[in-house]
């Protein structure tokens, strides 16, 4: 089990054997409110860090998810299509969004660990 790391855009990544599972944090789902629709990337899509890769629509607004890292989409969480509310109830487990295989020389030094992320949201909330 890889360590969970966090981005400033409130995404989390767990990297195991060069594959990152990516979703949004508990803090992000609270900010979004009731999620009613999730648009996921195509399997096989090549992601460049910063690209818009998914959209989360809550009752009140649409939120774009940008790729936190380069890679290729190898899986998406189809359950979210029918049960978008999973993003509210279980954002960091059942509500994962997509998995990407990373480039060999991937770099996660920019990301935060859990303690750093907690500090980050405490300051930025």
């Amino acid at each position, binding site marked *: 089990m890889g360590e969970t790391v966090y981005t400033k855009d409130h995404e989390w990544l767990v990297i195991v054997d060069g594959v990152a599972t990516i979703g949004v944090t508990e803090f992000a789902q609270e900010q979004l*409110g*009731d999620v*009613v*629709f999730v*648009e996921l990337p195509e399997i096989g899509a090549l992601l460049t860090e910063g690209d818009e890769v998914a*959209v989360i*629509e*809550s*009752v*009140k*607004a*649409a939120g774009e998810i940008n790729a936190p890292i380069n890679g290729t989409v190898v899986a998406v969480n189809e359950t979210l299509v029918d049960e*978008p509310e999973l993003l509210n109830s279980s954002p960091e487990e059942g509500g994962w969004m997509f998995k990407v295989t990373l480039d060999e020389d991937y770099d996660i030094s920019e990301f935060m660990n859990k303690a750093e992320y907690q500090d980050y949201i405490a300051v930025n909330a």
Partner: protein
Amino acid sequence: MSKAPDVKHTKFYDYHVEAGGKMVPFAGYLMPVQYAGGIMQEHLHTRDKAGLFDVSHMGQVVVDGEGAAAALERLVPVDLEALAIGQQTYATFTSETGGILDDLIITRWSEHCFFLVVNAACKEQDIKHLRKHLGDLEITYLSGQSLLALQGPKAKDIIGELTPAANDLLFMNGCHTTIGGIECYVTRSGYTGEDGFEISLKDENALALADQLLAYDDVQWIGLGARDSLRLEAGLCLYGHDMNVSKSPIEAGLNWSVSRSRREGGSKPGGFLGSDQILKHLADGVAKKRVGFLIEGRAPVREGAEIVDSQGNIVGVITSGGFGPTLQIPIAMGYVDAEFCAEGTTLDALVRGKNRPMTVVKMPMVPQRYFRG
């Protein structure tokens, strides 16, 4: 969240924060967009029980003086002389070119005295407009007055218990009364599609009244987010979105808001700002009109999305849209070319490059449950 000095807040600010309110700037005020329950829960609570809304940011204005009815009729296309004392009407302030400057509710308080509730974002402009055109009348902005709305099927039991006088009111009627010794003006009205009441009262009594209402298990605070989804399902226009100065009341589908007597063939046709244009729209029809849509699938279609026909021609634009918590599907309103206004017409909205199929439907999308006796 800190309160910037130039941002206003209503008397209920601390109550909102205590209830978990997410405070956002709205029309110069810090207002709760939602509370701890979230928009979905708050919306459904209002449809099921009774939602309490702080609408104190809205403008409360009294227009008083000999001939007030006839004078106000120069600014709104309604028959105010026909309004009984205690009766209310929806109206639009029309512009000289037949557009909408604001929408409002007018209540007749007495022969020569009218009580207006206008949108928060427009209130300063509305007061200038009133003073400019009605110089002989006394125009008083009730700056020390709060406004609460209690909306939903349980509202009548609660208000009926607190002030039996208000329980007999029919939709769009009001009365002066007291609730637990607090003087207030209660109307049977609101903007959610539900039966409900609006209560105007002095700021110093505002919290005491809220306490009385919140003492009921069926009552909880409802934020602006659910207020928006409730009014959207009820087919009600939001100023600045579904109507503005470049849309006439007829284009906005508010034909019913132009009184018969003010139309061609009526007893006092025209005579209000922009009446030539508006009566022409009534007689000849309009090129574009506001309609409601049910969206296929789950993706919300929001304000600004373009509307296209089956050939891909742009035929309109969405002005309000979102997820309808009661219907559990996305719904929207928008303006389309007249040939696409008929119920059942299928069109697409463009959302992030994808076509989202939708169907023109009759509004309201959720039946209104006003109490008409």
